[in-house]
């Protein structure tokens, strides 16, 4: 009986120690994790940043890698893309570009997954905003070390010399 009680108390003590240790690591980890709430307490509202306005300069931006879907250089507020209508295609479709002088969607958009050409835009490419996004002039939320292939090759060539 005595040893049992002793054992029990020991166990309880151990558990408390371990869980204290564990929760302190969790807390430490928590403050390093980037969250949208920041350090705001659970029962209060975090500070919300102002909504940045969308760039509307109509000037094409360079692509960061050859296959990057080009970013949208204008506002798209209230542009509907759904079963009934596709506002983007009212300027960017093959038949509309003469009037709109907008760039035509790439021919890949008229291909199915097996590379067959279709008469109309492929269903898998219909929802433009799945790949194309409007831009805002803001500080990036996370750091990005991406180096594009072009710069890599340049660095390699100059290193050889």
């Amino acid at each position, binding site marked *: 009986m005595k040893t049992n009680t002793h054992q029990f108390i020991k166990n309880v003590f151990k558990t408390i120690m371990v869980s204290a240790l564990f929760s302190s690591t969790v807390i430490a980890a928590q403050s390093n994790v980037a969250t949208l709430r920041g350090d705001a307490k659970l029962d209060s509202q975090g500070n919300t940043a102002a909504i940045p306005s969308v760039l509307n300069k109509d000037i094409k931006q360079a692509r960061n890698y050859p296959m990057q879907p080009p970013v949208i250089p204008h506002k798209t507020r209230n542009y*509907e893309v759904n079963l009934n209508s596709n506002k983007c*295609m*009212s300027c960017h479709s093959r*038949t509309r570009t003469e009037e709109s002088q907008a760039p035509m969607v790439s021919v890949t958009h008229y291909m199915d997954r097996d590379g067959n050409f279709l008469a109309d835009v492929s269903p898998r490419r219909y929802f433009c905003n799945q790949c194309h996004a409007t831009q805002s002039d803001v500080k990036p939320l996370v750091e990005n070390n991406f180096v594009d292939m072009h710069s890599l090759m340049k660095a390699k060539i100059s290193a050889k010399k």
Partner: protein
Amino acid sequence: MKEIIKIGWQTLRKPSAYFSLGFLVIGGFIAGIIFWGGFNTALEATNTEEFCISCHEMENNVYEELKTTIHFSNRSGVRATCPDCHVPHKWTDKIARKMQASKEVWGKIFGTINTREKFLAHRKQLAQNEWRRLKANDSLECRNCHNFDYMDFTSQSSRAAKQHSTSLASGDKTCIDCHKGIAHQLPDMKGVEGWH
């Protein structure tokens, strides 16, 4: 019966023996003012957004959608209400439009669009009526607020300035040709000119 009609007719035909001409002219003038004023007041009362959305058909569909657009809330706080876009401001046009509006009362009684499903089924037809009207009057309602003569192309986006200084300036196109669906969601656009 026949006698009564006969007497009535004769009274109307006979020149007035009891009232002076002056009285009749002035009396008629005053009565005219009263009728005209009453008519105008009735028109004004139906020319408000509250009146339009007193019908659930209008409130639950088009009004709800309008709320999310730039014509409901924007940086300058200028709002467009239903009658701004749908009832012409000029007198003659106004009356013509009101005559057409009695069709809506008819629709209300017979419930042509009294559910969301029925509304969506009818939407293309209703939208087409509006497009036709705005095309015919060269987008009069839009121009009541957006005056082409005072558009500053330099402060518009280049897409906008390009289209406005060409097709719009030459009169080739009018606002509604390029700006469909600025206030409500669009119906099925298959077959509509300028749409994919």
